[in-house]
């Protein structure tokens, strides 16, 4: 199958590209970020999905399947540009797919779509509305992109579309939202709270995406691995020290005194859990995570010990 990956220069996208290539697929990718020394057999095009050059690639290369991993969070891109990448980029990608006969699209979204609230169900199912819109303004454009991708299920009936809401990934490169929180020696928590967090190892993420592609799943799916664990367990399990801070002090200290910078809405997620029910995905694909929670945390602690971490505190 000819598979085009949008956002191919990201850590997980690169691993996915390699795995798909090794499984016999033809793989190409686009990303405005470079992938220096991209391996043979994987074409990387340094173009913006919103620009004409991207559409030319669709026209010329004629991908059969597209995996959309070119969305960004508030940690990597600030302001209006983030909205443009997430919303205009997603729209452009689906337009190109419709215009150039793509048969299958995977949209890789996030489980934070459901938002964190004291009175929401512990396990979120795919049928729930997005509460992140009201609680976490920094996630609004990601939620909108997810909802837009989901409209393809009825707007483009000839295309097999799957919206995958992935839990936090934790792996060896140490990138991603949760990895950023865990980067330092001391990790902040909100005093009096210890929410459950769902984590999935990066190799398992790649396996889940490959399965979704090859099983040609259609619909909206939560993708998770082992059962969720409390944030304090994740912090201690990765060799860090939890520092519970009273709520008013929390926002003052973020980005200072060795603590990571967090978005405004993130504090809600450090109070209340966002965990997902992944039964639908398991039934559709037979996915089974190979890393349990203990192995994920130990692997992260070994790969990124505190004394080697970026701002070791």
């Amino acid at each position, binding site marked *: 199958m000819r598979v085009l990956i949008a956002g191919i220069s990201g850590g997980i996208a690169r691993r996915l590209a390699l795995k798909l290539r090794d499984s016999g697929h033809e793989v190409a990718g686009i990303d405005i970020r470079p992938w220096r020394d991209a391996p043979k057999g994987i074409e990387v095009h340094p173009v913006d999905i919103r620009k004409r050059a991207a559409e030319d690639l669709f026209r010329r290369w004629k991908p059969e399947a597209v995996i959309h991993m070119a969305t960004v969070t508030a940690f990597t891109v600030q302001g209006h540009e983030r909205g443009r990448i997430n919303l205009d980029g997603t729209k452009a990608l689906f337009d190109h797919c419709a215009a150039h006969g793509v048969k299958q699209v995977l949209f890789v979204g996030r489980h934070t779509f459901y938002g964190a609230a*004291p*009175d929401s*169900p*512990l*396990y979120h*199912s795919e049928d729930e509305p997005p509460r992140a819109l009201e609680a976490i303004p920094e996630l609004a454009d990601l939620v909108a992109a997810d909802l837009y991708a989901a409209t393809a299920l009825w707007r483009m009936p000839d295309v097999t579309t799957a919206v995958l809401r992935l839990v936090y990934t934790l792996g060896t490169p140490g990138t991603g939202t949760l990895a950023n929180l865990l980067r330092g020696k001391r990790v902040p928590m*909100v*005093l*009096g*709270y*210890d929410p*459950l967090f769902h984590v999935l190892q990066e190799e398992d993420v790649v396996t889940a995406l490959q399965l979704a592609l090859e099983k040609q799943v259609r619909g909206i799916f939560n993708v998770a691995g*082992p*059962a*969720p*664990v*409390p944030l304090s*367990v994740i912090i201690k*399990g990765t060799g860090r020290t939890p520092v519970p801070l009273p*709520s008013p002090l929390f926002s003052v200290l973020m980005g200072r005194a060795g603590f990571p910078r967090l978005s405004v809405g993130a504090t809600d997620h450090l*109070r*209340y*859990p966002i965990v997902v029910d992944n039964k639908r995905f398991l039934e559709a694909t037979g996915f089974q995570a190979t890393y*349990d*929670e*203990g192995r994920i945390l130990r692997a992260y602690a070994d790969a990124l010990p505190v004394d080697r971490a970026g701002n070791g505190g």
Partner: protein
Amino acid sequence: MRPVPQSESLSERVERLELPFNEYGVDPYGISKKHLKLALEFFAFLYRNYFRVRCTGVQHIPKKGRGMLVGNHSGGVAVDGMMVLTSTMLEMDPPRLAQGMVERFIHKFPVASLWASRTGQFTGLPEHAVRLLEDDRLLMIFPEGARGTAKLYPDRYSLVDFGTGFIRLALQTRSPIIPFAFLGGGAAIPTVTNAYALGKLLGVPYVPLTPYLLPLPLPIGLEIHYGEPLVFEGTGDEEDHVIQGYVDQVKASIQRLIEDNRAERNLRRARRLLP
């Protein structure tokens, strides 16, 4: 009454719970062995020494599989829930954890939210109840809701209106209902009035006030009596009047347990006073 097993440590009883704890001692709902052990130390002290709880009928609670403990609220704060949870942990063999469906406001507060979650007490949402029952857990439900804890001292043995959701839930998940009566909570926390304005200020439905102002429980003897399971046939989609009929049966069963055991308690007291 079954003797409370004193030989086994509380920690051992938590270890014997049939919950899928992972290597960190946490189950898929976030229930933690560490928190359960600490909470049980405190609750067991209250249960055995402070309230000297008398418990009967635990043989009616299924040793395995799903079940709904449904009873009356008694006392202005959650002493009843705490003691019911403690009774299934201490009196059952093997022990079981009763998981309460609690009021929404609990999880808005730091510490309270954490301890409620870690001991398996979740917000009373249908999604939680269905999922837990389908996972063969033991649910604890007070169908009177917050109105039940608002009962004043003279009304301590009356029952206010029951909600109907719990019956649809039982039918939908094919769960047996184990009715129970909780006696003494109203005397332990003798509420003379409920301060609704103060409650609003604090973010809770109301604050029960006692003759000594604070709703701190007195060392009154409490009783929990479990009745025979009630099993209803249906799908949960029945007409309201059918559901209301089942609710009335559960309510009558609880009322009967209350009255019978109050009468027996009065008899015991009278015997003690006789020369």
